[in-house]
């Protein structure tokens, strides 16, 4: 009986639960201002537009769990987007599955470089990825010379119209559940399975706790580091094709309008409860974090608040949520200290 109580109270105080409650309260409040917010088509739209960020956020979460930081993923996405789309046009073949795979593989290879540098030279991950991001992007533009591409083969736009199921709302509009969202859910399940049930997944958490301890415990650090960084490369590649599907153009700076994209993704992951110091973080929390950010953006539009406020609101919420979290943790530490002494 007591145990059960403990479990429920634990569940109640988990970050995901709190986020979920905040999301619902937020949704209800916004809905009372503009009833379009909680309509199915709007919610499906939020799910669809957030899928790119969500995909990258899964990668960033994995890196952060290992107490690393990757800021080169937008550059990797830009490179794999440019190279893949160009290559498939030049070969005059291909379909959407091939595009996703090729982009993912290119991304994974680039990520491997990061992983190797991090492992071999024990450099701070922030520095390595700061360096490689300007190398990747610079190489794309100076050697491969990928120009803007405003017409892409038809299979990209076909995929964007594809829905898992559709239904007609009362107003007669057809609403579909996009495959882009499905893709995100599938990837989320895969990440959850990897983190939960495989040796690599346990290793990622172990590295995040203490790399030395993980090594002593017999984890293959090289393999795990390579896996982590090629995984984020892979999801960035996939996300880049999702970008092409959604916006139907290739642009070497849009993805790299990167500061904002990158910071949004990192903000979403942090909002989802992943600690920057490694060792903690869940798939569900990350998804909630991503949706939270897109809900805020979407609701600002629906409530008629000028878009300039978006940055202010997101910045404020980010500071508040991390602040509360960090403050609680520091209080807990003080308690421990008092008990110790």
């Amino acid at each position, binding site marked *: 009986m007591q145990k059960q109580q403990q479990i429920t109270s634990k569940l109640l105080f988990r970050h995901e639960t709190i986020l979920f409650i905040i999301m619902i309260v937020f949704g209800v409040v916004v809905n009372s201002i503009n009833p379009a917010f909680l309509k199915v088509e709007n919610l499906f739209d939020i799910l669809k537009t957030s899928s790119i960020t969500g995909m990258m956020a899964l990668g960033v979460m994995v890196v952060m769990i290992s107490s690393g*930081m990757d800021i080169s993923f937008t550059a990797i996405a830009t490179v794999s987007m440019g190279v893949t789309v160009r290559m498939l046009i030049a070969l005059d073949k291909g379909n959407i599955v091939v595009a996703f795979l090729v982009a993912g593989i290119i991304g994974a290879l680039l990520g491997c470089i990061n992983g190797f*540098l991090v492992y071999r*030279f*024990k*450099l*701070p991950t*922030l*520095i*390595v990825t*700061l*360096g*490689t*991001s*300007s*190398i990747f*992007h*610079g*190489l*794309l*533009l*100076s050697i491969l010379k990928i120009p803007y591409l405003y017409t892409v083969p038809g299979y990209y736009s076909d995929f964007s119209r594809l829905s898992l199921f559709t239904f007609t709302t009362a107003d007669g509009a057809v609403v579909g559940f996009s495959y882009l969202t499905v893709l995100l859910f599938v990837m989320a399940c895969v990440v959850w399975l990897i983190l939960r049930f495989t040796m690599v997944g346990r290793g990622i958490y172990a590295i995040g706790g203490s790399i030395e301890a993980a090594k002593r415990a017999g984890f293959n650090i090289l393999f795990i580091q390579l896996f982590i960084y090629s995984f984020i490369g892979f999801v960035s590649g996939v996300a880049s094709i999702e970008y092409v599907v959604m916006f139907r153009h290739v642009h070497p700076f849009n993805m790299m309008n990167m*500061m904002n994209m990158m*910071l949004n993704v*990192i*903000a979403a992951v*942090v909002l989802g409860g992943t600690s*920057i*110091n490694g060792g903690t973080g869940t798939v569900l929390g990350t998804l909630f974090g991503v949706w939270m950010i897109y809900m805020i953006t979407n609701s600002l539009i629906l409530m008629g608040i*000028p878009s*300039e*406020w*978006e*940055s*202010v*609101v*997101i*910045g*404020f919420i*980010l*500071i508040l949520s*991390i*602040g509360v979290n*960090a*403050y609680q*943790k*520091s209080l807990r530490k003080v308690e421990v200290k008092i008990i110790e002494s």
Partner: protein
Amino acid sequence: MKAKHRIKFDSSQNELNQSVAYFSLFVLVFALMAILQPRRFLSGINIQQLAFQIPEFGIFSIGMMIVMISGGIDLSIITTATLSGIISSIVLLFLSHRGTMDLGALLKGIMADDTIRSGLHATMPTGISMIGIIVLTIFVALAVGFLCGLLNGFLVAKVKIPPILATLGTMRLYEGIALVITKGAPLTGFPDEFIFLGSGEILGIPVPMIIFILAILAVATLLAKTPLGRGIYAVGENPLAAQYSGLDNSKILMKTYAITGVLAGLAALIMMARVDSIKVGYGNSFLLQSVLVVILGGVSTVGGTGNIIGVVFSVLILRVISSGFNIMGFSNYMRNVIWGSLLIIVAIVISSGFRFIKKTKHIDEVISR
């Protein structure tokens, strides 16, 4: 006791060696560029351009250096500058145009109109002289920078948010406030007396360069001679040890971030005065570059070590390389590749070098015992 002396001697010797190394690298790079492109690199225009471009980037880098020595990072440094630039330019424009227009019209970008600019002196407000207005503008810019920095410091030191996340949040926040104020439009049309700060010369030396040199001297003194400076190093080296040796960590960190904010405000003033406008998004490329320069300058990525000479010289070296590449016709993108590679190579060299130094120190200690 003996060991202590020896280590101290070693470290100052190291510092000297390091400075000499950076200086000779600078001379080498400069000479290389001069030999490769003698006519265009050494031309008066190019050198002058360099002298006008270096200061704002240099001041950002110094600001970044201070927080990185304390073991943190300040991602909000550029948007702090943007915000303080925008608020101070509103003050400047409002005061210097008072009587001719209201604030609302001012924000709609009417200031770009030349006729208003030329009629500036005729409509000067009676109460405050131009000098007074400019002093007030400078004060506002520095004060906004100070407050932004203080908020960063508060979040890092009191709320205990990791610096990278705290400043990530405030970066969005400051940028957002600046966007809300201006709606993304540029503010321009500053009086000529103010523009002097960014593009004037005194005895042939560009004013921004003079400001930069003063900032270097001030920060160098702060770091080397004051208790706060030593405190910043101590907190960066080992926060727990600093705390147990009686330092007030959170006070030191608050001050550190506030100083960086003030430097960002200073850079904003120079930026405003140099291009005669301010807009959200100016200087965004400086963010990653300033981190790069600080690391190239020998500041440890975990804090506690590094000195200003290395950072200043690496600012100079990078600008010289960059200008040389520009003349040689390398694209911006190729420069990015080279900078990225440089960053990783230097990081590798420094990290292995540090391991080497630590080892020798340890041996020294053992021997002297």
